[in-house]
């Protein structure tokens, strides 16, 4: 009864994309695709065969597998509100950040391995974005560690809560939640940092890197990106609105619905905002970094 977050995440992650799509469709006045469409897409992709270019090496095949595996491993470290993680130890915060980094590294390598100019460009942008988001993520988490004095994600989530926000330094929690939300949007290549629905290779960031993958490989990539959305989403909601009812079943239900609410929020953001010009992305991420540093400063002032 302890580690129910992982199976829930593995089963529910594609649903988040369905919710985002339905929200966007609602805003555009369309009916939109069914909420379960991402599952059908995954099933269809897994039934297909994969095509590999003769110029690619093992790196190209390793990319999707490693990124899926590392994202799953990252989720195994994450609690959902009061529901503890599958694995938890002191310092797993850093491991969590670098599981995400490992997956990204292999996606970038696979994109470079194809030798396509477009994919190289996408890889360069992805590397640039992640170089900017990683300090934001780590600084924000460092502020939370300093505030609660806990070094593992599960204990951290257990000591955050509505009453922690009212104590001195509680404003830091809101700042960290804001900067983590910006990180989550950038890492998941959503608007305003990247447009997942764009059709022009030149403007793509994440999508262009996976153009050459097909069949089950592409299914793995899609599934991994849903899981990543779930992972960063549950991190944001864990900081902002950790639900603790006392009963595991209710906690799980509440955690899942808070993520669905987050997905609706992402859908609203995507409907009302335009994508940022590429040169402005670093500007916004620098702002998010400033939030994290400010949170760290507040926490430092309230020992």
């Amino acid at each position, binding site marked *: 009864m302890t580690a129910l977050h992982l199976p829930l995440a593995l089963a529910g992650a594609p649903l988040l994309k369905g919710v985002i799509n339905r929200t966007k469709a609602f805003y555009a006045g369309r009916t939109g695709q069914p909420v379960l469409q991402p599952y059908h897409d995954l099933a269809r992709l897994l039934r297909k065969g994969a095509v590999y270019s003769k110029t690619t090496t093992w790196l190209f095949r390793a990319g999707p597998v490693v990124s899926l595996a590392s994202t799953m491993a990252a989720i195994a470290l994450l609690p959902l509100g009061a529901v503890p993680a599958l694995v938890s130890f002191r310092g797993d915060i850093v491991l969590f950040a670098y599981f995400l980094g490992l997956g990204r590294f292999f996606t970038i390598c696979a994109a470079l391995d194809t030798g396509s100019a477009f994919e190289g460009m996408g890889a360069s942008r992805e590397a640039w974005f992640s170089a900017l988001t990683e300090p934001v993520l780590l600084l924000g988490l460092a502020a939370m560690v300093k505030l609660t004095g806990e070094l593992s994600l599960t204990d951290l989530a257990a000591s955050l809560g509505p009453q922690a926000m*009212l104590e*001195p*330094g*509680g*404003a830091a929690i809101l*700042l960290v939640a804001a900067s983590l939300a910006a990180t989550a949007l950038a890492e998941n290549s959503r608007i305003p940092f990247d447009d997942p629905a764009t059709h022009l290779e030149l403007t793509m960031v994440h999508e262009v890197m996976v153009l050459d993958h097909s069949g089950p490989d592409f299914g793995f990539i899609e599934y991994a990106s849903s899981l990543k959305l779930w992972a960063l989403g549950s991190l944001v909601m864990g900081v902002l609105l950790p639900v603790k009812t006392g009963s595991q079943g209710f906690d799980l239900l509440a955690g899942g619905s808070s993520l669905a609410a987050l997905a609706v929020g992402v859908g609203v953001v995507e409907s009302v905002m335009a994508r940022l010009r590429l040169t402005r992305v*670093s*500007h916004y991420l*620098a*702002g998010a*970094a*400033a939030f994290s*540093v*400010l949170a760290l*400063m*507040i926490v*430092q*002032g*309230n020992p």
Partner: protein
Amino acid sequence: MNLLADVLVILVVLTNLRVLGLSRLSPCIRTVAFQGALLGLLPVLAHLDDMTTRLALQAAASTVIKAAIFPWLLGRALRGTGSQREEEPFVGLTASLAAGVLFLAAAQWIGSRLPHVGQGAPGHMVPTALFTMFVGLFMIVSRRLALTQVLGYLIMENGITTFGLAFAEKQPLLVELGILLDVFMAVFVMGITLFHLNREFDHLDAARMTELRD
């Protein structure tokens, strides 16, 4: 109460960061006005229990001048000009934000080394004051337009006010009013200067004034 004062101090820091990252001028002016209003409110919140007429009047005067009269003066100077944004500051906007983060860290470090200053003040008053002064100075040296430089001056003055709030519980009324009058006169003169500069040269770019010859 303490929590509310804390939130106000954090908002002051956030307004500084916003000004650093903005290129359009009218939101810049509004943000600095908002900062002035926050600083007018801060002493009131810190002394809710022992409120005096003097304190209330002082806060009201500072709020009216900083949040209503200054933005009106500067907005008037801005309306006459063609430039609505800071096109090419000497230090880019993203670099300014990054510098802001460094200032924040530096202010925190220096604040922690001044143990006898600001005891009894809300937790981050001293670092916030230092940070606000740094940002103001940085705006003065890193921006091209005379208007943004005036805003930098105002921000620096806000920082000094914050420092005063943290440093001394109650300043003499005359000192307080004197400072306020000084700043008011300075901005008044600067507003008139901006207006005339703009009428004479059709721009507010201070960097181009170094090339003036007769």
